[in-house]
């Protein structure tokens, strides 16, 4: 078991402040991160994702709980005794050192021999394609290059886990896309476990093997990008990852009765009162008589490849469908038109709570 788990957080609590003013940034979080996976902690700012990362790095000590690395308790180790390295949001490159000296820092602190250090530095700079800039001061580099130095510096000591704290947030869109691919490549080439923190759901979906979605100090759901997207566990996960529609409903013997009175089919649940959810691209528009639910089109928004069709159910609930725009751009739909809505089998998901 411990052979396959890199990081295990067990009932971790982190409180800031004392007494009545204490705020729990992490409230009883348990999480296993597997060896060699690209794991992303995803959530809005203030959800506790960076706090969890800093606890794993050892920059903060938990108020409760245990953190294991390869099965060994590291909860109370200082950061310099943990075989874990961090890529900081601000990069935190040493301004008085050259690129090569920055990359060599961790290796020197570990007491590696001179020849080993210089060989490893050269290898790392080649890996991030910065060999030609080894003698430069870091202040002479562009943002993207600084990012690569930060990566090389953190990877050089061959950590068991690499922690990345929103490292792409300072880059412009084009560079960010490039670095996403680059990061994935580095992770595959080195085989090191990556724990990546971001608030950008697209970044999380495209890069991760698994995602942990966090909100207000709790882990809401852990799963592969597909699981998180297609089978969100609760309303927060469903709305934070991508766009979605919510349909309040009540459980009955033959299915779920929507608030507009129509009964639809969806996976079983325990709760009486539920919210059904369906992604905009999984809604089909059909002639009014053939649909599961009759709706009225309230707005049409053209997005180029897609057209977003806003509709209202008989009880006033708003839903959006994403339709592929026809080649001539004319969908034949009109605002005010009545139309039928069909739910593809298995597309409706049930959110309890």
């Amino acid at each position, binding site marked *: 078991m411990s052979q396959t788990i890199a990081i295990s957080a067990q009932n971790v609590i982190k409180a800031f402040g004392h007494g009545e003013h204490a705020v729990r940034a992490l409230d009883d979080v348990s999480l296993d991160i597997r060896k060699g996976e690209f794991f992303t902690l995803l959530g809005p700012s203030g959800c506790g994702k960076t706090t969890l990362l800093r606890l794993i*790095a*050892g*920059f903060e000590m938990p108020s409760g709980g245990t953190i294991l690395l390869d099965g060994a308790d590291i909860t109370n180790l*200082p*950061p*310099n*005794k943990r075989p*874990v*390295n*961090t890529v*900081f949001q*601000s990069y*935190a490159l*040493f*301004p*008085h050192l050259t690129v090569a000296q920055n990359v060599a*820092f*961790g290796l020197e*602190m*570990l007491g590696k021999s001179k020849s080993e250090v210089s060989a490893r530095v050269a290898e790392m700079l080649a890996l991030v394609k910065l060999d030609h800039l080894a003698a430069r001061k870091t*202040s002479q580099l562009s943002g993207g290059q600084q990012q690569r130095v930060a990566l090389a*510096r*953190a990877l050089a*000591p061959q950590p068991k886990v690499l922690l990345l704290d929103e490292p792409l947030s300072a880059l412009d869109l084009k560079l960010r896309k490039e670095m996403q691919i680059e990061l994935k490549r580095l992770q595959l080439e080195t085989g090191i476990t990556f724990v990546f923190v971001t608030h950008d759901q697209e970044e999380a979906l495209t890069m991760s093997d698994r995602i942990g979605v966090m909100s207000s100090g709790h882990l809401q759901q852990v799963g592969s990008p597909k699981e998180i997207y297609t089978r969100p566990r609760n309303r927060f996960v469903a709305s934070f990852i991508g766009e979605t529609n919510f349909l309040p409903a009540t459980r009955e013997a033959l299915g779920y009765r929507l608030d507009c009175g129509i009964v639809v089919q969806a996976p079983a649940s325990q709760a009486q009162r539920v919210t059904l959810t369906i992604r905009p691209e999984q809604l089909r528009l059909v002639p009014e008589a053939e649909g599961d639910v009759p709706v009225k089109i309230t707005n049409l928004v053209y997005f180029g490849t897609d057209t977003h069709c806003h509709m209202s159910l008989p009880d006033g609930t708003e839903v959006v469908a994403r339709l592929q725009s026809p080649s001539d751009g004319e969908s034949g739909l009109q605002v005010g038109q009545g139309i039928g809505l069909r739910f593809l089998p298995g597309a409706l998901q049930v959110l309890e709570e």
Partner: protein
Amino acid sequence: MARPISHLPGFTPIAMAVFAALYLPLVILVFYSFNAGEDLAHWEGFGLHWFAKAWENDQVKDSTIRSLWLAAVAAVISTVVATMAALGTTRRARFKGQTFIYVMINQPLMVPEIVTAVALLIFFAWFKVTLGYQGMGYLVLAHSAFCIPFAYLPIRARLESMDLTLETAAADLYATPFATFRRVTFPLLLPGILAGMMLAFVTSLDDVVITVFVKSAGQDTLPTYMLGQIRRQVSTEVYAISTMLLGLTVVMLVAFMALTRKKD
């Protein structure tokens, strides 16, 4: 739209008056220190006569050497203390009474110097009688103490502009707390430390009030010697010494500016 300050009415005359008040006396002092004649008020041609005379004066030489080493020792001691104080007040979690500590460290800037001088006179008098020790230790202690805030302020300013994440990054890269200080904090802080040390050096070199009250017989520093000379008869020799001190200060000031300038 902010216009240059020089467009404000009356700016030029006020600025001229302020600069004249600040620098005209210095210009006159430097000018007359090169006077060839004996008379203080009459220009009798250019000469280095007074510089030579000051140079040959053993009392000037003794007091200069005493001033320089006193300032050097006080600067080193106060800078070490100030560096530790600055690290303690910026690199650690905030603690109760931190503002109080900050005020305490900067106390010599706020308490009138004459009060400190009298207090030290009484305090050290007791030691002098009890221990029978009359040496330079008292001056070293007193100078080191009042130089601390002068060293502390530039060091603290430098630390506050330094990203704390750099030290976190060093710890993350397996540096022990001491290695972090030696390899990251200290090299980045060095310009601040040197600036602080220079400021402390100049402050000690310049001090009269506390020195007069604390010193024992035969412990004249250059400023107290000059004060003694002037009390008897204003001599152009004092002009020459002042000019040399001014030159030293300008050199230190330029170095201080170069060290504290923000590099991009």
